[in-house]
């Protein structure tokens, strides 16, 4: 559905023609019907890649294709819906007028435009403000209007640049539900984010881009190591036995819940549990930690940082 191959972009700025390499050799493909997360810290090159895919900027090297066609092809654009990062719209329009304009650009007839308009303002929760100019909207409301306009043409592929940005927890949940609904309806969703919990909850596959380079791509389950990295045991014990238990092997800290013992693996955890129980202590919690997306993300970012140094 979306393909980029050895994509590179170098921006030339200012009077002195200073060059900034925003992307280098990025390649990935988004398959039909999947939710694909495009992850990376701020300034990683996510928006640059999306802008190339949407025909807003041209790559310096490599190529991008949308629905098998060259970027910018009008018939391919007809099948794509796009929400830009921090969407800016014509603020003198109302959501209804905005959606009507987009409907015209998609070549929809008047009755169809009206039907889609009503359906979408309802779906994104803007029915109460459908006739208010966008200039009076909060950031979250603008984001909702942005999502609605991305769906006017009933696209096969939906490209969302930071769709959760500016939304409160309820709004974020609604957007997550909307993305899942789109997948259920057979649409392909490609979205960028730096909020990893969203990606963990939604994505079939992810690509991680750091410093303009693609670091990882694939299903989350394959990217994250399944092995337990460490185990946290939260425990309490009568004052008399604290000193004995504090000498157990591992890393000791305290929280409001009790004492926390961090041990390297499940075998060590079992030994510690037996010792705590034998000493009259009480186990409050046992948390085995596997690699999270956040840890993978930080590891990749650090690796790029080191290679740049």
């Amino acid at each position, binding site marked *: 559905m979306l393909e980029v191959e050895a994509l590179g972009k170098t921006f030339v700025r200012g009077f002195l023609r200073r060059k900034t390499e925003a992307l280098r050799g990025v390649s990935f493909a988004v398959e039909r019907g999947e939710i694909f997360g495009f992850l990376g810290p701020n300034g990683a090159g996510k928006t640059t890649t999306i*802008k190339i895919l*949407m025909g807003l900027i*041209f790559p310096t090297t490599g190529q991008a294709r949308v629905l098998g066609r060259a970027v910018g092809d009008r018939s391919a*654009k007809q099948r794509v819906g*796009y929400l830009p990062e921090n969407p*800016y719209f014509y603020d*003198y329009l109302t959501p209804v007028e905005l959606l009507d*304009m987009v409907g015209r*650009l*998609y070549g929809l007839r008047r009755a169809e435009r009206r039907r889609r308009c009503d359906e979408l303002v309802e779906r994104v929760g803007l029915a109460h403000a459908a006739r208010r100019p966008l200039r009076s909207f909060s950031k979250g409301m603008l984001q909702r209007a942005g999502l609605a306009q991305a769906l006017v043409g009933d696209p096969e592929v939906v490209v969302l640049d930071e769709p959760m940005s500016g939304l409160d927890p309820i709004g974020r949940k609604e957007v997550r539900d909307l993305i899942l609904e789109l997948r259920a309806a057979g649409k392909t969703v490609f979205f960028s984010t730096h909020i990893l919990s969203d990606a963990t909850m939604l994505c079939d596959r992810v690509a991680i881009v750091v410093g303009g380079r693609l670091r990882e791509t694939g299903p989350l389950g394959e990217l994250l190591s399944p092995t337990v990295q460490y185990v946290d045991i939260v425990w309490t014990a009568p004052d008399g036995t604290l000193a004995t238990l504090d000498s157990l092997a591992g890393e000791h800290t305290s929280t409001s819940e009790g004492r926390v013992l961090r041990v390297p693996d499940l075998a060590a955890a079992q030994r510690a549990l037996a010792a705590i129980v034998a000493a009259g202590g009480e186990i409050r919690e046992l948390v085995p930690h596997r690699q999270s997306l956040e840890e993978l993300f930080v590891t990749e970012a650090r690796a790029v940082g080191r290679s740049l140094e």
Partner: protein
Amino acid sequence: MNGVALGLGRLWAIALNTFREATRNRVLYVLVLFAVGLMGFSIVLGELSLHEEVRVIKDIGLAGISLVGLVIALFLGVNLLSKELDRKTVYFVIPKPLHRHEFLLGKFLGLAVTLVVLVVLMAAILAVVVEIEGGRHDLALVRAEVLVLFELLLVTAVALLFSSFSSPYLSAMFTASLWIIGRNSAELRAFAGSKKLADTPLGTVLDGAAAVLPDFHLFYVSGASLGGATPVSIHESFVSWGYVVEAGVYGAAYGGICLLLAMVLLARRDFT
């Protein structure tokens, strides 16, 4: 045929939005200013002129339409693209299923519709004031107003060309400079052909400049042009429809080239 209709639909979507923007930004409020100014002037000048009130009102009115229209065409023309970039609305509209040149033509069409509405309403106000003073808003005046409209559309096309590669401030300066030179193209030609400059390199350069730069003098009909080649006046009957058509064809050709160049520049532009 269906493809053409869809293409026109997309152009109209952009044009309608541009027109909405102009009207909601209260551009049409200048009409009130124009009406009040014209009535004020007509009262004052009516007192000062002897039996020439109608002629003076026509002159002032036409100059007013031209000047007000020029300011609006210049202001909206140079901001047409830069506003889209500054407000980042271009990120939303370019990925939609339309060609970049359709976006540019739609913007131009929207501004053209705005200018047509503006000129028609100002002409109507002028007609009312002329009627009140006992005169007649005749066809000669209509032809002059049509010429003013052509001039404004050409100014917009030139402004759009400059704004496709430079800042609004520079675009306004370039366009205004071209308009001043173009309005004085007859003088420029006369100067280039004068005894001192004829057959000199400077004379050739000035003559070439007069030929290449837009000839806004063609649309200026109040008074006779220098050299007597195209003597026109709104107060005489010899401002023919033929002349208006000729000027229109020139404006369309020149404006068309400007728009074509702007499309070429826009086609490869990065919207960073």
